């Protein structure tokens, strides 16, 4: 291998390394979430592109109900089987949304103890059984949160 080729190879490897580093790896979260789904609902992370909307008990309950009502009103389809809502809290008045999506109620509140860095309403985007992105709908930034919910409906 000539010096020129060696330099080229080094450059390619460096770029490849940098690219791989810039991708956020959700290996830890995938492992925890996979085990949680399996232990509590006897399910696996979906292979097809999927949105998991998660809410534990340490949330602003009114905000969660409000965000889910927005999601409900923007959904035209009656069947959104690539959206799963998992919650530990009671959400009265969202019966229509519950029937439009996959709705899982964590009655024993096990989601409260998973080290998944949940913050208010948290969305896991998954593909091929792995988490590929995580987004948060925190207490503030209502406008941004609305936008994120609309994106889910659009990409659905």
């Amino acid at each position, binding site marked *: 291998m000539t010096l020129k080729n060696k330099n080229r190879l080094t450059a390619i490897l460096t770029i490849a390394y940098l690219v791989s580093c810039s991708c956020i790896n959700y290996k830890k979260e995938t492992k925890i979430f996979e085990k949680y789904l399996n232990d509590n609902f006897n399910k696996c992370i979906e292979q097809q592109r999927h949105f998991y909307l998660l809410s534990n*008990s340490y949330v602003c309950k009114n905000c969660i109900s409000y965000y889910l009502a927005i999601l409900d009103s923007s959904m035209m389809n009656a069947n959104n089987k690539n959206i799963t809502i998992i919650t530990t809290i*009671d959400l009265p008045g969202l019966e229509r949304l519950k029937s439009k999506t996959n709705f899982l109620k964590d009655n024993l509140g096990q989601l409260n103890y998973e*080290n998944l860095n949940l913050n208010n309403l948290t969305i896991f985007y998954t593909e091929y059984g792995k988490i590929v992105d995580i987004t948060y709908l*925190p207490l503030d930034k209502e406008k941004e949160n609305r936008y994120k919910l609309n994106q889910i409906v659009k990409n659905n």
Partner: protein
Amino acid sequence: MIYRLFLFLLLLFSLISCNNDGLSIVEGKVISILPDSDSLMSPEEFLRNIQIKNINNQIVSYWINYNTNSFHIFNVTTNENRSISLDSLIVGSIHQNIDYQILNEYDVGFYSWIDKKLYILNSLNNLIRKFDFNECLKGEDTNITPVSSNRFPFIYKNNSVSFVCTYTDLFMNSKDAIKEYFERNNTIQFLLSETKCTYHKYSFFPTNYQNGSTYNNYFFYNCLNASGEIVYSYSANDSVYIYSATNELIKQHEAKSKHSKIFTEYDLSKINDINYARQYALCNGFYESIIFDKFRNVYYRVYKKSVPYLNNDGKIRSGSEIPWSLIVLDDAFNKLGEIEFNPAKYSPSYIIPSEQGVYIGHPYEVNIKNRQLSLTLLKFKYDFKEQK
């Protein structure tokens, strides 16, 4: 060999007794409360709404069922069950932001902090008295919202009621606003007269709060003693503060846990990060409720110890994995001892003194699994009266 065994047992015994400062616990009967089978309440909802009090040495539990807009009273001692429909009594005000408590043998208080209205219902004749604090507050005090909740309930005494005082003109997202909040009065007392409304603001947060330190807790715990004085306990302060029946600060007295360390400040840049708030609450030790035991004339002050955020399984610690202790103070607030509790068995959420002993609740995780609220009657093997 026997001598070694004797030494080992002696050492073990001294370790056990030292752990509780000479106080030990004797477990008594267990009581359990279940929701009605037709109540349509989830265990989570039931456990969130249920409250317990000792009324005339009878253990009484009560809760609102929001599905049926009804108030339930279950006397654990006599096994009597009662239900009162609230539909016609408190029109339009039954929502989840209502706080309620049994005030005495007959009266029940319902407080809606959104409407700033207090309703006192006589459960015998269903007569209701209404007090609208919106009409009462004047001038800059219209910014005041008296607040009450399960953990920080209003105090009812001699036809007056005291609330935690919050201010709607302050947005608690900056150090300056929080400092100003802590510099203002933190309690408001209303005299309950149907003809004339009068109120009085009093009490301040301790100096470490007023200096601008924040601990992500804007409320406080307090209790009423036999003399009509109110004793205040703040999460991040080793002292208790005693206010006279006329709302004057009588004294500040140290009531420190042996586990108490320097209180770490909350990072205000993460004020909207709930995950950080949980981590902060777990990894720091704080004081919690203060309870007056009129049967023994002592006070119990709860101290929640600091623990690592995650347990050995890599999960976020649950309430049943957070150890706590009970500081026992005599009527002059001198520390009599500190009792260590196993959090897997006992929770500080329910501490109900009775003539027979003190009822302590089981952890939330155990209760939700069993779909009921359970408490154990404990006797502290130490007669406070005799020791004094």
